[in-house]
């Protein structure tokens, strides 16, 4: 499998704070990979680094064979990296359709955009029904779907999702995870997503990386990670086996 995205020995600083400490990470084409870890472990920073929202101090980021370490976010979106931001962040006072068009901002093919708009309405019927409604008035689950669809509008090869299940009721969490799998299978888009709930995340991902204080401390296939007692420790404390 060729690597679609490859981070190699990436270091990131916020002022004097060493936020990422030499991380190496890959996502293959059409793969689902999850990023796990506690709060402030560097998950969101990793996502921002991939999207070009934060400058890399040293190391490299390659995407689809191209070195994008110093490329702008706009360039990366054009190259095929899309984002589902943390807490969804749809544009609240724009309609569903306008949100989708904002996702296609970097594209110039009017016909293709119109087709994709239609495709999204089919794929997410709820969004089709509410196309003229302001996004801020949608429910949390619907907003999440809109954030997915908005990301897909740039025809990405990879979607980066920062905690797509955050703040959603348990029933909706299942739906969102199913949706990630469906996007991946039906549209062939690779997915890198941040998730707090390790078992849930690994149930749909093929591989995972576990971060702690800015470092990748564990990585492997989902099965390996699930069988690794350290995972449970990382989440429920050392005495869990008792």
């Amino acid at each position: 499998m060729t690597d679609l995205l490859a981070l190699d020995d990436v270091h990131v600083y916020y002022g004097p704070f060493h936020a990422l400490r030499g991380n190496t990470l890959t996502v293959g084409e059409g793969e689902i990979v999850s990023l796990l870890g506690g709060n402030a472990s560097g998950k969101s920073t990793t996502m921002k680094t991939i999207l070009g929202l934060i400058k890399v101090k040293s190391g490299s980021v390659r995407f689809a064979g191209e070195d994008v370490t110093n490329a702008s976010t706009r360039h990366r979106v054009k190259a095929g990296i899309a984002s589902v931001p943390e807490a969804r962040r749809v544009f609240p006072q724009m309609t569903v359709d306008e949100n989708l068009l904002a996702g296609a901002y970097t594209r110039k093919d009017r016909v293709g955009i119109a087709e994709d708009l239609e495709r999204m309405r089919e794929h997410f019927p709820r969004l089709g029904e509410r196309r003229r409604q302001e996004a801020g008035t949608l429910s949390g689950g619907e907003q999440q779907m809109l954030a997915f669809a908005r990301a897909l509008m740039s025809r990405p090869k990879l979607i980066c999702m920062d905690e797509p299940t955050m703040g959603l009721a348990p029933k909706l969490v299942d739906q969102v995870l199913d949706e990630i799998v469906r996007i991946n299978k039906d549209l062939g888009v690779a997915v890198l997503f941040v998730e707090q709930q390790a078992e849930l995340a690994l149930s749909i991902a093929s591989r995972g990386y576990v971060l702690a204080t800015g470092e990748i401390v564990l990585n492997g296939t989902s099965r390996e990670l699930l069988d690794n007692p350290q995972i449970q420790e990382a989440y429920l404390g050392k005495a869990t086996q008792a």
Partner: protein
Amino acid sequence: MSDVLLQVENLERHFDGLKAVDGISFTVAPGEVVSIIGPNGSGKTTTLNLVTGTIRAHGGSITLDGVRIDRADSARIAVHGIARTFQNGRVFATLSVADNIEVGLHSTLRAHRPFSRLSNLFLLRWIPLIGELFIAIVGTPASRRERKQIDAAVETEIHRFETRLGPRRDDPAYSLSYANRRRTEIARALALKPRLLVLDEPTAGMNQSETVEVLEQLLELKAEGQAILLVEHKLDLVMTVSDRIIVMDGGRIIAEGRPEDVRRDPAVIEAYLGRRRGLGGGDHA
């Protein structure tokens, strides 16, 4: 003296229709350490913000030692005896470590704050303000005595984190490392001699050894009889330090009890780890 320090009943708060805190009730006893855990977005920080008056509740009541505080602003709640720290650590960037702590002492001072009971009253608030100004410029014998007490109290709090904050007592807070800012913040909160100490993720962004250090400090405080309400993600720490744990999900309390019970509660395991589903993904297909 009652055996309930903090009593929260049917507390509610929504944001744009989304119920962030949805009718929760719990108590904290004097000297007790209670932790709130739960996934991101489950309403933990909102609960702390409500208890400390940083935001207002839309329903329910909060009582501290028999006094309703849900209508009070956060300054008054601080005077009542609740001190807090913030999720990302909010220190006074331009003040030194020692001065940060001194500000924490503010509500405990007497001689420096004449007529402080008027400070919340329209127009009359100028009486204490002018009093404070007079003491700043001229001073009184009582304020000079209290000055010594302030300095002693600041030293006590710095001493708590002696190896870390001692050498930096006169450095401005913006120049501190993240962990030291968190320590300064905790010291500032403790300076208030709070009846209830509210900590919002005190170890976020700290590494393993720093976390252990904070844990030891929390255990010390607990031994001193300090009541603590804690939100924290590092469950190791939570399990060790807490007398009782409250688990929140979706704005509600889904479990509550002693650490060893909570740890085995299937609802908790599910909220944190998620239900184990059939393995998906390419490698396992």
